[in-house]
């Protein structure tokens, strides 16, 4: 685990170096564009968390083994943290570039709705004490939340294409040096994701052991 954290730290230092000293300053947006190198990997890893939660939720319902519940819960929690950062950085980017804190751009809107769905998941988790019930309900929620993603994205995009388009978010011309910096940042975030995931889930397993021990003590 410690190794994973050290690797991520190293990758991050290298990514920051590339972002600030290697990749050129974008000509139109200026220096704010450098948010992008960390905004996009945040969004990717957030989405990846929900994918993991979806798969682990399915596996839980099939196998009914508590480890899948622990994996699923851990990745949702990480996903919500990452999505929060996506929304904040997106907003800080939108303000100087498009002159608003918030645009109902399909990607931003999708992130917001995802945040709502999985924050509801976390509330659901807090509200149930009985373990098998909590695991099952949370697995179901992780599945229907993820199944909703394509529809959410489609509706957000349709909504915009009917209204006049003010801003275009996906027309960033990328030079090779920019792509390299982005790629490294991507690696750094995925390695951080696995570090967080390991720490978070090992906490879940510890809790399970504690419950087990408590039961044994009670029996005596």
């Amino acid at each position, binding site marked *: 685990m410690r190794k994973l954290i050290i690797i991520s730290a190293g990758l991050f230092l290298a990514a920051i170096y590339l972002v600030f000293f290697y990749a050129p300053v974008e000509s139109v947006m200026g220096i704010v564009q450098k948010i992008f190198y960390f905004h996009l990997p945040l969004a990717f890893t957030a989405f990846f968390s929900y994918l993991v939660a979806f798969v682990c939720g399915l596996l839980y*319902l099939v196998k009914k083994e508590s480890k899948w519940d622990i994996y699923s819960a851990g990745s949702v929690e990480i996903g919500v943290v990452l999505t929060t950062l996506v929304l904040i950085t997106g907003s800080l980017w939108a303000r100087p570039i498009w002159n608003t804190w918030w645009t109902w751009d399909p990607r931003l809107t999708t992130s917001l*709705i995802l945040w*709502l*769905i999985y924050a*509801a998941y976390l*509330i*659901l988790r*807090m*509200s*149930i*004490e009985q373990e*098998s*019930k909590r695991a*099952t*309900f949370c*697995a*179901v*929620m992780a*599945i*229907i*939340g993820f*199944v*909703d993603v394509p*529809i*959410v994205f*489609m*509706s*957000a995009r*349709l*909504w915009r294409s*009917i209204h006049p388009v003010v801003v275009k978010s996906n027309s960033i011309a990328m030079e090779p040096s920019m792509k390299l910096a982005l790629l490294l940042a991507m690696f750094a975030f995925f390695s951080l994701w696995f570090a967080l995931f390991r720490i978070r889930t090992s906490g879940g397993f510890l809790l399970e052991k504690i419950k087990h021990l408590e039961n044994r003590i009670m029996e005596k």
Partner: protein
Amino acid sequence: MKQAWFIIKKDLMIEFRKKEALMSMLFFGFLVLVILNIATGIGSKVASSVSGGILWLAIIFSAVLGLDRIFAHENENRCIDGLLLSPIEPESIFLAKMAVNLIFMIIAEVILIPLFFILYNNEISGRLPMLIVIVMLLNLGFSSVGTLVSAMSSGIKKNDMMLPILLFPVLIPLIAATVKSTTELLGGAGVAKYSQWLYLTGAFDLIFFGSSYLLFEHVIKEG
């Protein structure tokens, strides 16, 4: 199918005998229509660009109240255990509960939609068939997910606000698409202008009917 029919009859009999759930639903929907008119200062003539939103807000809120009841009396006396012990399959329970919810929603809409047109002075002449299509598409999607989520929320004793908290975020695209197509319809646009929204609603219905149907068994066994 026969089993499902049996549950539908039982539930409808109970609800119509007690009536209070249906009355509360209708009353609350009407209340939302009135409050929204006063709160937005619209007065008697409403711009078609916001009318769709107002109509659906009232219907969705009243439908959530009805949804809350779907599993309520099963849980009160642990009747659900009896249902699960009986040879009735979970799939039939799902279909039956969804049908009961659909019937409730349709009753509420038959009363609330005309009230909306009266209170907000809207015209619908000749576009009624299309409105019915939109309404039914929403009803299907809403009651598919709604039945699943309601089965979950009724099993949570610690927090009785779980139903709207879990349901609304998932429903956002369905509500957005329905509001959009209703607004276009009331504004006098042709079907071509909002057919994409109708396809989206249809896709939502298909995906969520399928997944709710499959997932329901797991939920009801834990409930």
